[in-house]
């Protein structure tokens, strides 16, 4: 017998791990969100900046408060609350009053995350829970849109931004008309739905349209998503499945009724579909883990988005489509378990 025997570690799988923690991934997602946030500020000025900061601070404060209540460790440093706040701010209209944004941030963390047990236990994407809450609570403010590239956007705020807490924001249609000539106050999706007017793909790609703070430039969102996918911080299958399914559904509808339905490019580039597909549907805690399941999950979201847009009462369907997808994720996981190596039959 030789004195030296090979060291064998007796441990349960997994044996090979990636040296990347939650914190690293989250920090990179924040980095990828920053260009989008910066572009949003460039388009909408000081009000967008105040909105993003308020939403993020509300999320961070709620997270800290919940930490203290639960007596657990401080979880601000894992960056997840920052992501929730930034994403939430990007999904809100730039003219959204700051106090409502704070309510949304509180709802996102308290209802969407803390009640389920914190990061990794949440069933729904917290940012979308926050947005859904304010969508139900303040339906007028969340569908009040302002024009991008207002000339005085870096010197003055949109009048609704500093609405006193619990008060109704003032009517800003006169202000918006004065700021940008010929402004109609409708998003491209609403204009298609109610006036049958299509925005050009070039406008949609560059973001020169009326929309939520961060859902305007499809090109920029794609670029940031590519960075995350290249570093493998997000599952590329999810955005591909969401956008592919949405495009296929839109194409089928257009094939059946070319005069009624817009072309797939418009469906892909308008509204929050890009932001949702790249940054929200890909949330690790709320999407399935099996490769086959991820395809099903993404396709469900894509089809539902188009269905809600075409047949629902709202003009935009990405939020509810992703929330429904989140709810289905555990079920999808259960039915797409891979065969265990060496086991006979479908399930071991």
């Amino acid at each position: 017998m030789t004195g030296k025997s090979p060291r064998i570690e007796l441990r349960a799988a997994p044996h090979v791990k990636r040296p990347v923690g939650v914190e690293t991934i989250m920090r990179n997602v924040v980095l990828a969100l920053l260009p989008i946030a910066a572009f949003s500020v460039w388009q909408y000025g000081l009000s967008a900046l105040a909105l993003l900061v308020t939403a993020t601070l509300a999320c961070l404060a709620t997270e800290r408060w919940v930490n203290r209540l639960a007596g657990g460790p401080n979880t601000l440093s894992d960056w997840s609350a920052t992501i929730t706040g930034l994403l939430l701010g990007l999904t809100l209209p730039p003219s959204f009053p700051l106090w409502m944004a704070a309510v949304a941030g509180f709802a996102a963390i308290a209802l969407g995350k803390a009640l389920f047990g914190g990061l990794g236990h949440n069933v729904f994407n917290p940012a979308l829970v926050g947005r859904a809450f304010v969508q139900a609570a303040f339906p007028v403010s969340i569908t009040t849109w302002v024009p991008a590239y207002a000339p005085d956007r870096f010197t003055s705020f949109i009048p609704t931004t500093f609405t006193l807490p619990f008060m109704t924001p003032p009517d800003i249609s006169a202000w918006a008309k004065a700021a940008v000539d010929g402004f109609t106050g409708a998003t491209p999706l609403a204009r298609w739905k109610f006036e049958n007017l299509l925005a050009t793909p070039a406008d949609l790609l560059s973001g020169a349209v009326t929309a939520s703070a961060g859902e305007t430039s499809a090109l920029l969102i794609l670029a940031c998503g590519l960075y995350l996918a290249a570093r493998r911080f997000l599952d590329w299958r999810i955005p591909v499945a969401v956008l592919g399914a949405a495009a296929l559904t839109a194409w089928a509808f257009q094939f059946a009724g070319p005069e009624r339905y817009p072309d797939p490019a418009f469906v892909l580039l308008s509204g929050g579909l890009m932001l949702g597909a790249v940054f929200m549907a890909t949330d690790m805690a709320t999407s399935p883990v099996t490769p086959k399941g991820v395809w099903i999950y993404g396709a469900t979201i894509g089809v539902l988005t188009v269905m809600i847009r075409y047949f629902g009462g709202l003009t935009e369907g990405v939020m509810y489509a992703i929330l429904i997808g989140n709810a289905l994720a555990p079920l999808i996981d259960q039915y797409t378990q891979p065969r265990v190596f060496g086991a006979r039959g479908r399930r071991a």
Partner: protein
Amino acid sequence: MAIPGQQPLSHLEEFMEGIWKQNPVFVMVLGMCPVLAVSVSAVNALSMGVATTFVLLCSTLLVSLIRNVVPKEVRIATYIVIIATFVTVVDYLIAAISLAVYEALGAFIQLIVVNCIILGRAEAHASKNPPLRTAVNALGMGAGFTIGLFALGSVREILGAGKLFGVALFGPDFQPWVVMVLPPGGFFVLGAWLLLFNWLKNRAAGSAGKLAEGGAHG
């Protein structure tokens, strides 16, 4: 409730049962249908609470009086008939007093008949206890239910309409939280109250435990 082998509760304790230890809304979480449906405003909540208390008091009193006469096999049917009788009385009473409240509460007045608090009290308490004790317990339960309903109704009315009992609290510029008068708002507010109630209860139990411990050591 009197448990064999234990000291029976005093009447005050019996009354407090329904308000604190066995509150129908916050502890037993019973009768959720009316709690969530009619707690849109404080007036509706209070009327519903008072109506339920009336039915609860009258029916448990009657059940307690005839508890030794009713055969065990048909007791549930008997209770339901008694409860339904008083619900009919309340139904006509409310319609006569205030048509607005009657229309706001709608079918939920008639549905008091299937409110599980009432049948539960009849079965678990009134059928085993003398009338006075039952009446005190029913009053406590009714008060607890009314408090629970009012707690939900006032929060939902304040946030959902900026009013309390129809009086505007924040001036004409108040932004109503539409979600609070919708069904999800009912669940959110109920959840928040359950959280608060359990937190208070745990704190009370914690300090009582500490006191007992301190006493034992001292």
